[in-house]
């Protein structure tokens, strides 16, 4: 059929214009700014070449942030995804009450990370908090969940996992709809064969769900911000800092917008591979439909 060429563009004009102004142009602009030194206020922006990047590679706090992001990645993709699958397997049954159980586990997904941070703030609080109270009751020592530099990142990941596991579970519950019910039930009762069946039959059938759950978890782990900023601001002494948080602090607390942009660019480049993989996967499965 012949349509005038401009027709689709007419429909796209406004959305595309807005998207260009607030998304595409900023991406380009951040790249440009990463080669500059700018305090965010003065009219002159000084071009300094690769200096920001050289400084970044020698910045110990940035190093800590990258390592912490890797911990987040392992926690999200390596722990939250399998736990989400396990809970999904458990709840994908026809017993009475499964619906309510599922709803209750979904709940953290509706919360903002600010609220989640606030809630965990009391749970993790050193002197009166819930976890330390329980530890003390059991005769164990209190842990400085948010003050001990060796522990704090894991505490943050734990708080975020509360929501992330709900998300991966939702993805797997959707994936399990493609798996015949008898297979899942058998996997729970069938003793010796259960594990083999799980690995050789169910896992391969869940591949699409796994790809989505893992890539989205990785992308989210590399852009974690809110919960870190709300609970610790990256502290104590940058020990729980992640790239997103360090970028914000450098740009908006220390007014080093050029340096902040360089951090964003590195963060972007690290994430890019996963984004491209995901896009290829989604668009390919789109065409197969």
């Amino acid at each position, binding site marked *: 059929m012949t*349509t005038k060429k401009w*027709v*689709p*563009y007419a*429909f*796209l004009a406004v*959305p595309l214009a*807005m998207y260009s*102004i*607030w*998304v*595409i*142009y*900023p*991406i380009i602009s*951040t790249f440009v*700014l990463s080669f500059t030194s700018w305090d965010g206020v003065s009219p002159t922006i000084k071009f300094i070449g690769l200096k920001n990047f050289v400084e970044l590679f020698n910045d110990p706090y940035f190093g800590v942030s990258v390592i912490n992001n890797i911990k987040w990645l392992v926690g999200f993709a390596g722990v939250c995804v399998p736990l989400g699958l396990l809970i999904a397997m*458990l709840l994908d049954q026809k*017993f009475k*009450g499964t619906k309510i*159980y599922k709803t*209750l*586990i979904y*709940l*953290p*997904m*509706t*919360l*903002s990370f*600010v*609220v989640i941070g*606030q*809630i965990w703030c*009391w*749970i993790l609080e050193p002197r009166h908090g*819930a976890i330390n109270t329980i530890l003390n009751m059991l005769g164990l020592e209190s842990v400085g969940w948010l003050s001990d530099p060796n522990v704090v990142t894991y505490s943050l990941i734990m708080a975020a996992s*509360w*929501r992330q596991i709900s998300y991966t579970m*939702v993805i797997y519950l*959707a994936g399990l709809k493609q798996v015949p019910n008898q297979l899942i039930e058998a996997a*729970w*009762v069938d003793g010796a064969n259960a594990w083999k069946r799980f690995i050789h039959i169910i896992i391969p059938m869940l591949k699409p769900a796994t790809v*989505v759950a893992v890539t*989205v978890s990785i*992308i*989210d782990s590399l852009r974690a*911000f*809110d919960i870190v900023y*709300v609970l610790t601001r990256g502290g104590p002494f940058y020990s729980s800092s992640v790239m*997103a948080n360090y970028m914000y602090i450098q*740009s*908006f607390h220390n007014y080093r917008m050029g340096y902040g*942009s360089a951090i*964003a660019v590195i963060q*972007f480049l690290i994430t890019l591979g996963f984004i491209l993989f995901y*896009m290829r996967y*989604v*668009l390919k499965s*789109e065409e197969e*439909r």
Partner: protein
Amino acid sequence: MKKLLIFYILGTLIVLLWVSPFMISFFTSVKTMDELMVEHQWWLPPDIWHFENYVTAWTDANMGRYFLNTFIITIPSVLGTLFLSSLGAYALAWYKFKLSRILLMVFVGGMLIPFQMLLIPVYRLSLSMNIYDSYQGVILFHIAFQLGFCTFFLRNFMKTIPSSIFDAAMIDGASHFLIYRKLVLPLVTPAMAALGILEFTWIWNDYLWSLVLIQSDKYKPVTLGLVNLQGQWVTSWNVMAAGAIIAAVVPLIVFLMFQRYFIEGLTVGSVKG
């Protein structure tokens, strides 16, 4: 029988674990500080229910104002992004043109990038457009940014509508806009409802963009307001907890009312959480 037992024991344990943070916050919000600090019994209801903590949070801690602000920001953002993305998705789903595939990829890619890539330029833009520290600044940004996910989502849904319907309308000589309005929009209404609920929750829960684009207390949404409370009310855990629940209650209700749509939206797009 054995199966049933395994299910109920394991299931109940997990659910209890999952719900306990909610219970702890709710019980905290209705206790006095003395009771909290002395008894440490987080998991138990209070001796006397102190709902006045909610009044303190709502009025003295200004959560009422923040709450209203979130509505003022969220509703136009959701409607705007739904409308504009339905236009874009319509073009990408039904017309064959050169840039179609590239544009789709641009929309998909944009929603996955780290927000830090946009932070500084968006902040500068809103300063130079004179919309820094206003509702419009955040609303316009949300509309634009959420276009990525929404366009992708709606395009996929429109692709499932048989194109013969579209072709027939074309042959009948209907105008392009008429086809969009009278034929396609009614068909995608269910998808837009699911999408709208998801978007409502996401925008309601936004913290970062309000943090960067809003400065004055009078425009701040609940998420920013809640963090603000940490200053003056940091020792009043009960008031903070009431504030947290005020910030969470609307998305919770929306979710409980429209759970099916919410989950559908999340898994059909399978894109982000």
